[in-house]
């Protein structure tokens, strides 16, 4: 196949920069979830072996957290404008039964991101800020001593709740990627087929061809 026909068969969805940014966050998240779960439930403590033991798990976790937070902020800047929730998105979310049963033809047209993706985005934004702020109050030995113990208790609970919500949200996110065929390719190689864009993100598809890609 020549370069030209290749080009007509694909649409760029994520640039190399966006993909790198996404996967930096993803790798950090995976490490954070594994090390965090190790300290959360005794049944998961064995995961601390992956980090060189309990003490290393305790040392590394907050630093990885800072890396993820910075990378996540960059990601927020990249995708914020495409994630504003509108009337169309609420309607999309109301028809979640159609969505999960692969009856996509019944739901409103979708822009670059659908209602579910936008909801996920804002859930993650809240969680990441919650985790950062509460994390400082329990980060020993550096920051925790400057917070009153009552606040540290609250922070530990908030940290656990935010992490729990975030882990569940990411499980949904990962599964959605597997479920909607072509999504993993979009985030690994950057491109989707025109049919994929037409089916799942029709308004965005029309935008792209109008701009003459």
């Amino acid at each position, binding site marked *: 196949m020549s370069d030209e026909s290749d080009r*007509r068969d694909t649409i760029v969805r994520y640039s190399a920069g966006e993909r790198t940014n996404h996967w930096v966050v993803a790798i950090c998240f995976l490490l954070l979830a594994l090390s965090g779960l*190790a*300290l*959360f*439930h*005794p*049944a*998961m*403590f064995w995961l*601390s072996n992956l980090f060189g*033991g*309990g*003490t290393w*798990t*305790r*040392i590394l976790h907050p630093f990885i957290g800072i890396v993820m937070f910075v990378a996540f902020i960059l990601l927020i800047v990249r995708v914020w404008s495409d994630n504003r929730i509108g009337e169309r998105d609420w309607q999309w979310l109301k028809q979640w039964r159609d969505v*999960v*049963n*692969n009856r*996509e033809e019944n739901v409103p047209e979708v822009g670059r991101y659908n209602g579910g993706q936008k909801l996920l985005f804002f859930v993650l934004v809240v969680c990441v800020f919650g985790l950062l702020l509460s994390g400082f109050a*329990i980060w*020993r*030995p550096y920051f*925790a001593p400057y917070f009153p*113990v*009552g606040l*540290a*208790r*609250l922070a*530990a*609970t908030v940290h*656990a*709740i935010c992490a*729990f919500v975030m*882990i*569940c949200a990411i*499980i*949904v996110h*990962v*599964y959605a990627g*597997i*479920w*909607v*065929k*072509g999504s993993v390719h979009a985030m690994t190689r950057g491109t989707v*087929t*025109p*049919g*994929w*864009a*037409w*089916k*799942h993100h029709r308004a965005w*598809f*029309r935008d792209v*061809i*109008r701009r*003459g890609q």
Partner: protein
Amino acid sequence: MALQSLDIIRRSATTTPSPNVRAEATTELAKLIDVSKCIGCKACQVACMEWNDLRDEVGTNIGAYQNPHDLSENSWTLMRFAEYENPKGDLEWLIRKDGCMHCADPGCLKACPSPGAIVQYANGIVDFHEENCIGCGYCITGCPFNVPRLSKRDNKAYKCTLCSDRVSVGLEPACVKACPTGAIVFGTKADMKDHAEERIVDLKSRGFEQAGLYDPEGVGGTHVMYVLHHADKPEIYCDLPSNPKVSPMVRLWKGAAKPLALGVMALTALAGFFHYIRVGRNETRASDEAAAQREMEKAHE
């Protein structure tokens, strides 16, 4: 067999029973501190640092008898001095020997994420095993008495052991041995309560109407108890909490939340798996590609 206690009734971050064949034969012990007999000599502090081979840094005088200023990784017990003006307008010098209370329901152990870093023996002693400590400081968050301290040298948490090493071979804790007035006594918890009863009767006969025993219910009772001449106002003894409890935040975080959160995470993943099995993937078909091509051609024209 290695030297081991075989009477561990609770072990941090452990979901199966710990070796405890000796637990049945063990009696609950307690240290009783009679605040009304204390003269503030600090012999207990000296005995503690001697027996445990601890040397705190020499601090500065802040115009109080309290020395050092606070508990630390090297000072596991501390005489706290309060100048209290009673309703009659008289000054009372209230001296309280602070340190780990060895709670029956220990918040530190509940919060600890590292298996075996904190254990509770059948005799009631709550002991830190620093070899297993990871330095997260959750014990500090869990403790309702503000006792554990993280060492700046090794980032491990330290506190009073109730001289578990001495007690295990039939000796009383070092502070008890050193106390010149008999303000600190040690024995079975039942005996200590009986002794406290006698002391309270005596104190009441001397005009301390509110004298009583401090063995707070909220943490299931403690294995370090106080006889207070003003048991109705524990706070006047340098902020001894009147109703200490493991914080509801800690109970939630290291209690119900643990199995609940793991369960919901597992269910979320399972929901995905069964969605895949029942509904299957959302695939782009040839008809979708054709529709897209039609629109693209139209846009070209």
